[in-house]
């Protein structure tokens, strides 16, 4: 009896250990590129391809980081990225909340069609409309400007859908009660809707922030002068200028990875559940 239970327990232990080893192996394989990026960023250019591979450089060149930061003028691009991403995020959150509330809490002619139209834009990624969108922005005189980077991406179907979903789960009685108490439409939205919806607002804000900060294509098309460029553009132009300076390239890449990594570790729950529930990013 007791030996049988011990055998069962042993087998369970063995299975768990095998599973752990397998998971550890896969995780290591997935993380090797990132580790390699950081490890190379601390080497000198002559020793990049040394064999056997030095995973931990014997004399780490920490000075690569200040050099990379200064060479790329990171501060300027960080400020630009912050301006663009901040504006896009705020606009998206406000507009998504309004539209989500309108679609969830009001009955009006054509709201089903409206919802379908908004859904349909999910099939219209930037890359499909980049040519006419570029011409439109050129026509508006917004090339090489902040508004050119911000306004065209300031409304996003995903944000609207997430907010609508959230407001649908909000009991109508609450809103009816506020109306009976004499609150106006905007007042009810601001005093009842927004405070109750802050978890959804936060998730939308984080997802939009992340995808906007990470976006390369649209700023790349719109911006031609370095003074307006965002971090991804700076990284790309450094890469095309310094193709073979691997330690510097990796240091620049590591620095550029810091903001989104910090964001991920702070808002891990929202980011993962956001990706999981919407099944979409960007």
């Amino acid at each position: 009896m007791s030996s049988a239970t011990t055998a069962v327990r042993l087998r369970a232990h063995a299975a768990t250990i095998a599973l752990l080893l397998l998971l550890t192996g896969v995780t290591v394989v997935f993380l090797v590129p990132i580790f390699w990026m950081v490890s190379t960023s601390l080497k000198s250019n002559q020793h990049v391809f040394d064999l056997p591979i030095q995973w931990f450089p014997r004399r780490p060149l920490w000075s690569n980081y200040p050099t990379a930061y200064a060479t790329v003028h990171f501060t300027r691009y960080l400020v630009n990225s912050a301006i663009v991403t901040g504006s896009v995020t705020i606009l998206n959150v406000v507009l998504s909340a309004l539209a989500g509330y309108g679609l969830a809490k009001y009955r009006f002619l054509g709201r089903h069609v409206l919802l379908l139209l908004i859904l349909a834009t999910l099939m219209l990624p930037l890359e499909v409309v980049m040519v006419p969108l570029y011409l439109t922005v050129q026509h508006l005189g917004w090339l090489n400007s902040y508004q050119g980077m911000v306004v065209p991406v300031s409304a996003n179907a995903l944000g609207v859908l997430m907010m609508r979903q959230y407001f649908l789960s909000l009991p109508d009685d609450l809103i009816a009660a506020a109306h009976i108490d004499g609150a106006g439409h905007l007042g009810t939205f601001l005093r009842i809707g927004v405070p109750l919806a802050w978890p959804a607002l936060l998730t939308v804000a984080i997802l939009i922030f992340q995808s906007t900060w990470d976006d390369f294509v649209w700023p790349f098309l719109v911006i031609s002068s370095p003074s307006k460029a965002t971090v991804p553009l700076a990284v790309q132009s450094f890469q095309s200028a310094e193709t073979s300076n691997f330690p510097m390239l990796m240091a620049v890449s590591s620095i550029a990875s810091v903001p989104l990594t910090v964001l991920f570790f702070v808002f891990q729950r929202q980011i993962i559940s956001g990706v999981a529930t919407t099944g979409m990013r960007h």
Partner: protein
Amino acid sequence: MRRRWLGPTQPWWGAAFTAPVLVLLVCFKFWPMSYAAWLSLTNASLTDRARRFIGVSNYVRLSHDTTFIGALETTARYVGATIAVSMVLGLALAVLINQKVPARGVFRTLLFLPAVVPLIVVPILWQFLFHPYGLVNNALKALGLHPVNWLLSPQGAVGALVVATAWRLTPLCMVIYLAGLQSIPGELYEAAKVDGAGAVRRFQSITLPMLKPTLLVVVVFAITLTVQNFVLALVMTGGGPDNASTTLSLFVYQTGFLGFQMGYASAAALVMLLIIVAFTVVSLRAFRIEE
């Protein structure tokens, strides 16, 4: 059965709340879309203001353009391989993490990290890893295999793009799968266990059927993301060697913004839209039939 409506019914307010988003989507999604349809029927150029209506000439030209046909083939191979790898690997990882393992949260966090690396860094990093003397070839040599000239051979360039894209896409698929797996009631597995079903059997008869809606979400998500993205190809291979890794979206970018042929690029962009819509509609249909 209609649900009881307690909320406000004033039509103007509902429309007013939605109006700002609608205006922006019309200006920057629907208008460009129709504009693209019109442009594709003209000889519009980025440098020349004068445009002429030329009918379907651009589409006829596309059907003869070997670069475009090549881009379609490359896209099919690139997207097909990337999706296959990330969907299978993502599912395998999700199933592993969904077991009762210690520190599964830590594994989930660590495995998600490739999706956190900035998109622009991904091709720069992998270009370096696929360097002739880089880490990938070192690993191949250590395994007793021949090194590959990744970025300078037609096969290798597409292969390298697939690996880099799948590396970034797999964690996203994994997370979507995990949400799907966690919505499967545990009692189903308990009952199957009592009936003596093994792990493989349980996966086949419970996990896969219950996961069908999730699988479809992942397919649409992964295809759309892979078809549209050209940053990796642009930075890693530039579409080379000899256009071997030029995908459809890269073709649109190169024709429009480097070749200045906005009309011709718009025609190619519409073909790309057609592909995305076709895949989405087919998947949605499959969804409906299931329900």
